[in-house]
């Protein structure tokens, strides 16, 4: 009889990218030391471009200096994957999980993240699929609706997935998204005529899909995670 597995969810609203990195670093240490259970951050970012470990900045099509004028930041990270855009109306989930305790390797973990987004898309009648080899992510036809970029350190995951609900697509024109030149980016809004509920509900549904795919027995929403964010600010 296996021990029931709990996922603790932090609903964070809109969080500055650097702050979210700082928070994830802290949580990865805590998870590694077994002081917290598997934890999931559910949030959005203000307009932000990010690069992965390979630093593929040739895929940023406007000069870095111009980013400020379009209201965006740029950050280099240690995650896998190419350049991407995060912004309002894009749902982000950062699972901080112990891969050993869920019995996954990198590949099966990423496949489960894909399945979570595919399952979520189906709630709105959108038939999404996992990417082909070298095109990790979630697609509707040839249009990318969900992106993945993950870091695994000491067996603990951070970064995660980004699912386009209804972001401002013009931001994607300034990059070669995920380094794939000939494919479009899409969103839930574009792929369905269904009435979309509030974003809070959408985030909850996405979290539920992930919890189901990862077979968590319990999902516990953390009380007042904004307290933690304020503590992080004080640490500066």
């Amino acid at each position, binding site marked *: 009889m296996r021990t029931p597995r709990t996922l603790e969810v932090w609903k964070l609203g809109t969080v500055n990218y650097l702050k979210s990195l700082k928070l994830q670093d802290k949580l990865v240490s805590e998870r590694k030391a077994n002081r917290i259970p598997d934890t999931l951050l559910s949030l959005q970012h203000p307009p932000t471009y990010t690069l992965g470990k390979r630093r593929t900045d040739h895929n940023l099509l406007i000069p870095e200096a111009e980013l400020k004028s379009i209201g965006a930041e740029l950050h280099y990270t240690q995650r896998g994957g190419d350049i991407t855009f995060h912004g309002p109306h894009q749902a982000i989930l950062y699972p901080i999980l112990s891969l050993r305790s*869920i019995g996954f390797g990198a590949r099966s973990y990423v496949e489960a993240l894909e399945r979570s987004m595919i399952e979520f898309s189906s709630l709105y009648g959108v038939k999404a699929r996992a990417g082909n080899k070298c095109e990790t992510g979630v697609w509707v036809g040839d249009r990318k609706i969900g992106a993945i970029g993950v870091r695994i350190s000491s067996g603990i995951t951070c970064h995660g997935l980004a699912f386009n609900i209804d972001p401002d697509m013009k931001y994607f024109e300034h990059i070669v998204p995920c380094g794939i030149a000939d494919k479009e980016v899409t969103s839930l809004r574009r792929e369905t005529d269904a009435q979309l509920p509030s974003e809070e509900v959408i985030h909850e549904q996405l979290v539920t899909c992930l919890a189901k795919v990862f077979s968590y027995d319990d999902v516990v929403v953390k009380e007042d995670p904004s307290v933690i964010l304020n503590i992080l600010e004080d640490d500066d």
Partner: protein
Amino acid sequence: MALRMWASSTANALKLSSSASKSHLLPAFSISRCFSSVLEGLKYANSHEWVKHEGSVATIGISDHAQDHLGEVVFVELPEEKSSVSKEKNFGAVESVKATSEIISPISGEVIEVNTKLADSPGLINSSPYEEGWMIKVKPNNPAELESLMGPKEYTKFCEEEDAAH
């Protein structure tokens, strides 16, 4: 992966040798990789790196089990020559399926050679994890550290238990 490891150890136990039986179990390519998936003569860490100790040089890479669980490797980050590595501390990273995974050193020592082929051919880690996919060569500064690593039989069991647990 669990099925492959099970098939491998079962086939070994039954001493199956006829090619007819082998092809009945799994495609030929997988079978030959199953039987070579844990090499004799190496030591293994529970983070799935292997060490080949020959005289004063220890070669380090990641196991077949590890490369299979990673997926296709597209990028490898390795330390510089003359840098030092420490037991159980990360010395580099690989990227596969949009995930960067740290590689942990099984021993401490000085890096004397780095496999520069991996820059242009990171897939060698998948196709030849124990030979052409080697990552670094190290001059160990504490050979006793090798004693605490697993031998091939222990490591095979470790992988089977890890895969079976879920």
